[in-house]
């Protein structure tokens, strides 16, 4: 199970992004995962509840967008959806195909939270309102 190490890498990326934007909390994290990436969405979700503890991300949530498996045939140039272990052209049965979607493992978006700037906020320790 390597989802925990993938998840730790994800959270490092998220924290870097949050710091670059001077955010003080992270809400929804959206990743895009294809079945041919080797990452199991359910295991990633489980790993996330353990790994998120720590600065900035302790109340973050993980939203996993599942990418479909799509191939393009090099022989007849048609595109079609496919199962991950049956990547054959559905028009001419060729195995000479290119994967156009299905192996992605991307950090797509991060929702950042920030307390309002100190002039407007009487209490600088104030947590974002919707935690």
């Amino acid at each position, binding site marked *: *199970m*390597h989802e925990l*190490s*993938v998840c730790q*890498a*994800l959270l*490092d*990326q998220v924290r870097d*992004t949050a710091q*670059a*934007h*001077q955010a003080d909390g992270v*809400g*929804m994290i959206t*990743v895009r995962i294809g079945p*041919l*990436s*080797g*990452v199991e969405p359910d295991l990633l979700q489980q790993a996330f509840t353990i790994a998120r503890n720590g600065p900035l991300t302790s109340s973050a949530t993980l939203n996993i967008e599942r990418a479909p498996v799509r*191939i393009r045939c090099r022989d007849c140039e048609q595109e079609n959806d*496919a199962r*991950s*272990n*049956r*990547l*054959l052209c559905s028009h001419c049965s060729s*195995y*000479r*195909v290119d*994967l156009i979607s299905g*192996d*992605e*493992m*991307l*950090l*797509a*978006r*991060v*929702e*950042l*939270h*920030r*307390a*309002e*700037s100190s002039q407007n906020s009487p209490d600088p320790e104030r947590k*974002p*309102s*919707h935690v």
Partner: protein
Amino acid sequence: MCETCGCSIPDHKHPTPADHHTVEVLEGLMSANDRAAAHNREHFNRTGVLVINLMSSPGAGKTRLLEETARALDGKCSIAVIEGDLETENDAERLRRHGIPAHQITTGNACHLDAHQLHHALHEFPLEHEGQATDILFVENVGNLVCPAAFDLGQHLNVVLLSTTEGDDKPAKYPVMFRAADLVVISKADLLPLLDDFSIEHAGNSLRGLGVETPTLTTCAGKTVDINAWVEWLTDQLDQHRNNTQQKAATTAAR
């Protein structure tokens, strides 16, 4: 980066709700590993060594194949091995007994090698031994058909072993691993007469079902040994690798 505001001013305010904003990142989750892998590749390309990542389920015959490979290539080219294993130093010791320079990475409970671990090993384990530059460096990955496929190590080629006792439908069960292969070695072919349900043709079809043109070959490294096709493939790859390296050097020099 920031679609809401661009974030050029560090202290800017956002329209309501003031404490929300979503940034697009669109970066691969493996980017830290991939950067380390690219650095490893620089190490390799500095010496010209060909690096092969060997993967399979536990016990498919990776270490055994390397022992026989060393014997077959003795005097023709020099090989070295970096071993990834959960706990023991056993495989590295087996190889050293065959005169192969070997370095062990014990991964603890990680079920795969990653580029950082390999980089660390590269700084401890030289790519030349007794004044002789290593021609082929094998990385024997942790026996596992799932996780190692996700981690680029900086290798030039991936070889996946499928032993005849595992069943010929393994590619369909582990598509991510088998799609990553540049070569699939069907190992323990000496056992084929004893097995009634392993067909090399089925294994090939299962692999084609993944939409790849990956070549396959068979090896025997039991009581009888026949690894000729494998040795031939290796020598071809080494020649090709050297040609590529020379061509690259020539184009850089011409510039």
